[in-house]
Structure formats: structure tokens, C-alpha cells
């Protein structure tokens, strides 16, 4: 039996996704899930406009922007802002410097350098809270190896995270230990991917190495530096786990960065409204910084493409 096509029959319609619809279809599931997750986010916005304490449910009600206005005259809010920004600037700045330095050290793809660069990734793979715990054990005043080493240097009352004057230093140190490898690996990849011609030309012209570094290497590395900075800024200003695991925001209010302060407000003081308002301000700061970075990054990318 042979099948013959009937010219009068209507053509079979097969469902085919057009090339125009395909990208929308592909991105739709992620977008839908993300939009679904907007519910708790907008709930947080809603709470931030409320007088809402879990311990006083009868007093709950809209107070609109009062939570935000109260921040203006609230010294603890300004302390939180200051601590958060200080922590962010210190960690990102130091990690960039260190990461760049280490990347320059490991720039040549020798066997040892490759091995070392892999080993240096291990702290990055350690959960920050566990890293904080490790450092907590090592800085214990009774048996911590670092406490012992510092005492051997003649500093007898160095109390690491339990002293307000050294607590910030300690958590910054832990942050550096965990996240410097992230910046290092990004910048290392950047350094190794730079074209050789400009450097060969500079060497032929007798340009000193420092000048070549500042005039050629750094400008060409800027997109990588911006990307690394953006990622680190986002994480650093929203830091929670290292600080909470090390000091729970203390001693006193020494390290009450935004998320720690919001966490304590929500789960200890049960002041949901203030906590939500704090987080919204953090979101605004993060959004502003990210926008700034992304615009610069896009501008650089366009320039690079234009020049290519």
C-alpha cells in the first residue's frame, strides 16, 4: 500500500516556535519565577511603611514614611550606614589591591603558578560562616594560634573580634581571606588574556615597566577590575554571615552593618517595620551602586567594540 499525498487535503499544521518567540519562551520560566519572588520583596516594602512589631500586634498600622523619617534622627542608623560603608570600602579596596598584586605575581603561566592559583581558590570555596568560625578558633585568646603568634610579637592584649578597636580589622581580615581569591582569579584571567603586541611595542620603545603597567596594563584591565569590584561591592555591602558568625554585630554596635542590624531588629527586637525600612535603604544603595557600575561597564564594552 502506498500513501499518496492528497493535494486537496489541508496541510498538516505542526506547532513550531518561531525564531522571534523562542528567546521569550526560553527566558520566560526564569522571569516568572523571579516575578513570583517579587511577592516577598514587595511585602517587605509594605512592611517598611508600617508600624509593625511582632510583640505588639494591636499597634500595627500604616505609618507611611515614618520609619524612614525616623532614621534621620536615629544615631544607630547613621552608625549602621557608616559601619557598612567603611566595611565595604575597606574590604573591596584591600581585596582589589591584594588580588591585583597576587594576579601579577602569578601572571606567568608556569606550573608552580598554576598550582598556586588553584590552591588559592580554596578559601573562596569555604562557606563564609565556616571561615569565620575557623578564624574564631584561631584567634581564641586562650589557645588560638594567631593570639599566640601576636603575643610572641609583644602585643599581649590583642583581643581580635572581641575588642571594639580591633573588631573591624578582624572581620575585614576574614573577608579578605575568603574573597581575595575571587578578585585574584578574575584579574589573573584578565591579565593572561591581554594582547601581547602593546607590551612588545612598549618594550621596543624602552618604556619603563612601571609606566607600561600604569599606561597599558591597568587601562586594559579596567573592565575586569570593574566587574570584580561590582560583584564584591554587592556582596560586601550586604555582608551578614562573616560578621554575624564572628561577633553578631558586636562588641556593642561596632559592626552592626545593614543586614545584621536589620536581622537583629526583626528577630530580636521584633520590629519588622524598622527592619524592612533598613533593608529597603540598603536595596536603594545597592541598586544605585550597581547601576553606576553597569553603565560604566557597558560604556567600556562599547568603546572596546568600537575600537576593535
Amino acid at each position, binding site marked *: 500500500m502506498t500513501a499518496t499525498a492528497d493535494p486537496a487535503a489541508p496541510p498538516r499544521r505542526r506547532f513550531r516556535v518561531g525564531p522571534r518567540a*523562542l*528567546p*521569550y519562551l*526560553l*527566558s520566560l520560566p*526564569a*522571569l516568572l519565577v523571579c516575578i513570583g*519572588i517579587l511577592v*516577598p*520583596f514587595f*511585602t*517587605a516594602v509594605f*512592611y517598611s511603611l508600617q508600624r509593625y512589631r511582632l510583640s505588639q500586634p494591636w499597634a500595627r498600622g500604616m505609618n507611611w514614611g515614618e520609619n524612614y523619617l525616623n532614621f534621620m534622627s536615629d544615631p544607630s542608623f547613621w552608625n549602621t550606614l557608616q559601619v557598612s560603608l567603611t566595611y565595604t570600602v575597606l574590604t573591596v579596596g584591600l581585596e582589589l589591591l591584594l588580588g591585583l*598584586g597576587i594576579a601579577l*605575581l602569578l601572571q606567568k603561566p608556569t606550573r608552580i603558578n598554576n598550582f598556586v*592559583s*588553584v*590552591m588559592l581558590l*580554596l578559601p*573562596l*570555596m*569555604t*562557606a563564609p*560562616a*565556616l571561615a*569565620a*568560625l*575557623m578564624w574564631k*578558633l584561631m584567634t581564641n585568646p*586562650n*589557645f*588560638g*594560634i594567631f593570639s*599566640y603568634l601576636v603575643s610572641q610579637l609583644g602585643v599581649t592584649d590583642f583581643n581580635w573580634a572581641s575588642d571594639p578597636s580591633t573588631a573591624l580589622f578582624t572581620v575585614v581580615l576574614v573577608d579578605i*581571606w575568603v574573597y581575595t581569591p575571587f578578585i585574584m*582569579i*578574575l584579574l*589573573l*584571567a*584578565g591579565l593572561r*588574556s591581554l594582547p601581547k603586541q602593546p607590551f612588545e611595542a612598549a*618594550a621596543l620603545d624602552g618604556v619603563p615597566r612601571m609606566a607600561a603597567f600604569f599606561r597599558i596594563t591597568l587601562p586594559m584591565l579596567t*573592565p575586569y577590575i570593574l566587574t570584580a569590584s561590582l560583584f564584591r561591592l554587592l556582596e560586601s555591602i*550586604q555582608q*551578614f*554571615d562573616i560578621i*554575624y*558568625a564572628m561577633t553578631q554585630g558586636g562588641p556593642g554596635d561596632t559592626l552592626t552593618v545593614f*543586614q545584621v542590624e*536589620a*536581622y537583629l531588629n*526583626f528577630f530580636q527586637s521584633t520590629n*519588622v517595620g524598622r527592619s*524592612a525600612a533598613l*533593608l529597603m535603604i*540598603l*536595596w536603594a544603595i*545597592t541598586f544605585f551602586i*550597581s547601576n553606576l557600575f*553597569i553603565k560604566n561597564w557597558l560604556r567600556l564594552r562599547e568603546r572596546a567594540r568600537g575600537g576593535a
Partner: protein
Amino acid sequence: MDHESTLERWLRGAALTVVVLFFMFPIFWIALMSFQTNETILRSPPSMVFQPTLSNYQALITGQLDSQAGTLQIEFMSNLANSAILSVGSVVVALLLGVPAAYAFARYKFRGSEDIAFTLLSFRFAPPLARAAAADALFPGSRAGRHLCRADLGVSADLPAADPVDRARLFRGHLAGRRIRLPHRRPWLVRRLPQDRAAAGGAGDRGGGAAGVHLRLEQLHLRAGAGLGRQAAGDGGRAGLRDREGIQYGQIAAAVVLSIAPTLALALYAQRYLVEGLSLGAVKG
């Protein structure tokens, strides 16, 4: 040609040694502590010479801590299993949702693509606690909030990082997807998995507790760190690593090692993909 003097070589070597010491020593020292008893840990000055013991690991793995007060139960391994389920599950969901979307943004130029991509990226800007706390308030007493937040973490955060490395056509031939797409996705995957794994750490999900809330990544970190950390801080707690003889620092160290060991092993195994994933994924435009 780049010539380096002997002095420069020495300086470079010295600098590298310092760097390696700084980054490797804490891991080395905690690993050493995990093979010590409390007695040897608490002696002063600290020493690298001791009689190694596996009792800390044995206690954690068997869940039985023998002490003068009797036998105490430790739930560490079940907590670790929870972490594994949590991290693998979130990675799978993130991959299922994130890879097709990343492919679409990378492969096609379509109307609104920048806006959609930025919308997805913007979820990373929102403080995790904002969603977590609200989710907890929305779903009091349930785990829905934390699952919701976990899904959020998995989906949105990686889309910008999941940059297209290749130009294979995922949905126009399953072979292309299996042989080309997925292998090229491996850098991102392996970058993601250890971090999620690390994030979950030894996180337990036993519920209850002073705050009563153990949400999202930071809180999950905290379950690993703080559950043990409370012991280290000496402020009591429920992690079960304390008996009448005091805080069991050796077991805390062993718990840390057990929590990070799978991640580190995976990272070492997949390091070359990891480097690619970090660099290409995050930097290429």
C-alpha cells in the same frame, strides 16, 4: 623579552610564599585541630606535635559522643545530608531555569532583552534578608518562605554570570545540547555547585532555636557556622558539641573539615572549569 633579575626572582618567591601561607594556613591549622583532643588543643603554646586521634570524626559520623556525662547524640551527619540535598536541589532548579534564559540573552537580540536581563539581574541587588524576612512573615511557621528564598537565590543571581561560551544550538538538536552546551556550561555549574554547597555548609534544619528562623543563604551559612560557633563562643547552644567537660573544639574543627571537604574536593577536581567559569562568565560582555 621579559628578563628578571635574581633579586626580583627571590622577592617574587618570598611574596608568593607569604601569600600561600596566609591563605593556606587556616585550613591547615583547622585540619590539624580536628585530629586533636581538647587537651592538646587547649595547651599553651600551641604545637604541631601531638598524638593524632580520629575520635572527633568518629563522634560526628556515628552521632555518638562519649563523655563523662554519658553518651550524647549528635545530628551532624543528617544536617550535612540536608545541606547536600538543599544545595544540589537549588543548583538543579537554577540550571533548569537559568541556562535557557542565559542562552536566550546570549544568542538572540530581541526586543526588551536588555530590560529583561537587567530585571533578572536586579534581583541580586535586593538584600537577601528583605525577601527572607518577608517570606517568613508571609508564611509563618512553614518552610515555604525559605524554599521560596532559596529558589530566588538560585535563579536570579547567576543569569548574568552564565555567559555564553560557545555558539551551539541548544534546542535544535539534543546532541548539541548534550555534547556542546552542557560541557561548556560546566564551568558555571561547578562554580555554582561548590558555592551552594559551601553556602549550605553543614547547615541543619532542625527548626526552633532562639531566633526561630533559619532562612536563606546567610541563615543557612549560619546554621553551619553559628550552630558550631555558639560553642566556640562559649555561650551555650544546641549544636550538641558540648558536654560536661566543656566545648569540644576538636569536634568543632572536625565538623568544619567535614563541611568544607566535599566542596574543596569538588573545587580541586573542577578547578580548570572553575577558573574559566569565573573569568569568562563574569567578565565577557
